[in-house]
């Protein structure tokens, strides 16, 4: 299968008035539940097209599993600096804008995508961006497609910026029994020039921890310097796997809160269990299974911080808008963008904000 085949399938569906579900590995069943007449899968687009080690760049097809790409990059001592939980494809990662603890140092996946190839419902295959790490020619459609949930077209290929994989890491862990004290300590660390690899918080059952991860030869010393008196763990991967796991739930409801550093304490205190990125102000709160009321309470309590429902039982997903409120002017402009790229609602109709 090629990108042109995907575009042809989209165009056929457009002409026939059919709605297609766009799917990678199917590991992030998020958004509004919406009916579809068929499915287009990126799974067959599974080639690592280029890995330019000397340039720290790569070109991969959308269906490549993130894990496989990371293994290939790691063989050269490199990585795509995005570490969301679970598996999934690179296309799915980009389409959902998912992230993990490395977000702290390396920003979001939107900041690591250099170029994109997309199959559009008009039957064309378009490219934007480039394969070099610096480029301002043309519109940055990759930004538009990152986090667009397949509603504008099907991402078929991505060019990516890679980073050196750190040879060693160490994490300082400090415990807290008050969410606001935890948030205060975490954000004050975020204001110091310590260049942490990751800076996370975790809260559950009335206690929590601050985790500051450092990389490089002096990682352990830097961890001790950053949080004097804290426990420093050099074999730290399990700690971070737990942080990532906190962004998912098999039976409960996960709400991703976009807040500010000042709002971090309130977000941690708002739910029974949470993990978060302290500097970025992103918190994933897990609520007991099927509890619709709890989601509504959370939104009211943390308003106007956007609270997006990710993993959730069907009963919750069916009963509320997972995206929450969007500003009217902004939503209207989003609809205009959708109308230009996918005028007949062929690609993932209904799953996105405002029923886009």
């Amino acid at each position, binding site marked *: 299968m090629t990108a042109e085949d995907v575009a042809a399938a989209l165009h056929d569906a457009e*002409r026939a*008035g059919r709605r297609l579900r766009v799917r990678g590995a199917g590991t992030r069943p998020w958004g509004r539940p919406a009916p579809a007449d068929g499915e287009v899968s990126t799974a067959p687009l599974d080639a690592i097209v280029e890995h*330019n080690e*000397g*340039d720290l760049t790569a070109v991969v097809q959308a269906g490549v599993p993130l894990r496989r790409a990371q293994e290939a990059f790691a063989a050269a001592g490199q990585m795509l600096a995005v570490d969301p939980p679970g598996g999934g494809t690179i296309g799915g990662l980009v389409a959902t*804008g998912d992230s993990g603890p490395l977000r702290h140092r390396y*920003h979001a996946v*939107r900041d690591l995508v250099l170029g994109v190839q997309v199959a*559009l419902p008009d039957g*064309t*295959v*378009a*490219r*934007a961006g*480039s*394969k*070099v*790490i*610096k*480029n*301002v*020619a*043309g*519109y*940055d*459609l990759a*930004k*538009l497609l990152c*986090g667009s949930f397949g509603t504008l077209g099907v991402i078929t290929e991505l060019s990516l910026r890679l980073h*050196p994989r*750190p040879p060693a890491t160490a994490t300082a862990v400090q415990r807290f029994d008050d969410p606001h004290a935890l948030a205060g300590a975490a954000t004050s660390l*975020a*204001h*110091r*020039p*310590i*260049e942490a690899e990751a800076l996370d918080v975790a809260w559950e059952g009335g206690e929590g921890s601050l985790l500051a991860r450092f990389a490089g*030869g*002096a990682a352990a010393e*830097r961890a001790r*310097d950053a949080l004097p008196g804290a426990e420093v763990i050099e074999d730290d991967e399990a700690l971070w796997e737990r942080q990532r796991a906190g962004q998912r739930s098999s039976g409960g409801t996960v709400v991703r809160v*976009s807040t500010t550093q000042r709002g971090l304490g309130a977000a941690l205190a708002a739910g029974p269990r949470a993990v978060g990125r302290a*500097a*970025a*102000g*992103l918190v994933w709160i897990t609520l007991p299974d099927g509890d619709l009321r709890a989601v509504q309470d959370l939104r009211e309590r943390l308003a106007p911080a*956007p609270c997006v429902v990710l993993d959730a039982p069907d009963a919750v997903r069916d009963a509320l808008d997972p*995206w929450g409120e*969007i*500003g009217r*002017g*902004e939503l209207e*402009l*989003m609809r*205009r*963008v959708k109308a*230009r790229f996918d*005028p*007949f609602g062929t690609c993932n109709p209904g799953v996105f*904000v405002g029923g886009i």
Partner: protein
Amino acid sequence: MDGSLDLVERLRAACGAQHVLTDHNQLRTYESDGLLQYRELPAVAVLPANGAEVAAVVRACHAAGVPWVARGSGSGLSGGALPVADGVLIILSRLRRILEVDLDNQRVVCEPGVTNLAISAAVGPSHFFPPDPSSQVVCSIGGNVAENSGGAHCFKYGFTTNYVCGLEVVLADGSVVQLGGKELDRPGYDLHGVFVGSEGTLGIATAITVRVVPAPESVRTLVAFFETPGRAGRAVSDIVAAGVVPGAIEMMDRLTIDASEQMAHAGWPEDAGAALLVELDGPERECDARFEEVRGLCEGAGATGVVVARDGAQRDVFWKMRKAAFPAMGRISPHYYVQDSVIPRTRLPEVLDRIDALSREYGLQVGNVFHAGDGNLHPLVCYDGHTPGQAERAEELAGEIVLACVRAGGSITGEHGVGIDKKRYMPKMFAEPDLAAFQKLRCAFDPDGLANPGKVMPTPRLCGEVPGPYRQHPLEAAGLAERF
């Protein structure tokens, strides 16, 4: 311009008569931006005082069907703020208030006319705003947003787009929308992300929310000298391959060193074919260890000498050499033409050879100064505009350099933007479906094509109506016609 009198009256009512310029001599101040090769007089120039006045101006233009161009400090190098004849030039230099310094959340909200450097000044010394174009003393944050500006430190820190998280935008119909905000990962399309770098064709940002970050604890700077730029390029590859991410890594060739010496007087060796400026910043412990590694790598790659800046003053001299390169070139050549192409870093030696060959073929000197870490070249094609035909030859040579970079897998522009200057190269980098996709975006924001028309896209395009929900045509249903 039909109905121009009405429009001028409306602009005067919106902004005050003294802020609406129609006099030929006054308008001439604004006939070019930083790229002086292009000139155009607008019908009217207007200097609104705030976002509400900008919206009123744009609404008036929309009502009159008159195109407009937004201008910040006018320091852009691609002609992006070149006025359109018979159009309105909207000058944003009066919108220079920092609206909010929210250091608790590491955010600054400001108007578009605020200078790049003023943002760092407002949050220093504990924090700074990383994108640092060489023109940062004068260039405006609104212009940085339009161009997605970079700078010397973007190899490590990223570009304007990585730091903008919210925008208040006046759309081409005069409506005002808030895109993004202080929070990250807000639901919906990343419209502020796609707005950054759109070169004034999607609207005017009237309030800009940026992230600021802690200033590094330690900064160490060295300059290493090499026999040729190719050898310096090898040092760059070795440094990057070792996993070092320098804050900045800049290269100058002999011609640009000569030019800069006339302004900065650094006293660098006269026999060096290239100078490599390497700056590491970060936590002291990390910085010191890595700095020795970098020095060793430079020496291993054949550096003929390495000078470490002993203090801030010497560091300033190093940077003055680098930043003087453009203005200093004017002292050794009557005119020069700057390119902004990007190549994959590993292709540097072959592209430099190609530039050398072109330089000899055209009989014109080409100076090379570039952001070596990210492969962003700034070839300076020297010429004498008073010699008939030389300007044209210089432009042709510059075009050949752009093509060599695109063929090497690169880009026609890394930070200056396409504007008017590079739009003719767009088809070298993008195919028709790519340009058509760009146009879809532009039409979503500005269906009437009033915002900075004639820029970015290689040929003018109109926006059709959005096709309605699909209905099968009766002939098609009968099997008599195929849609195309």
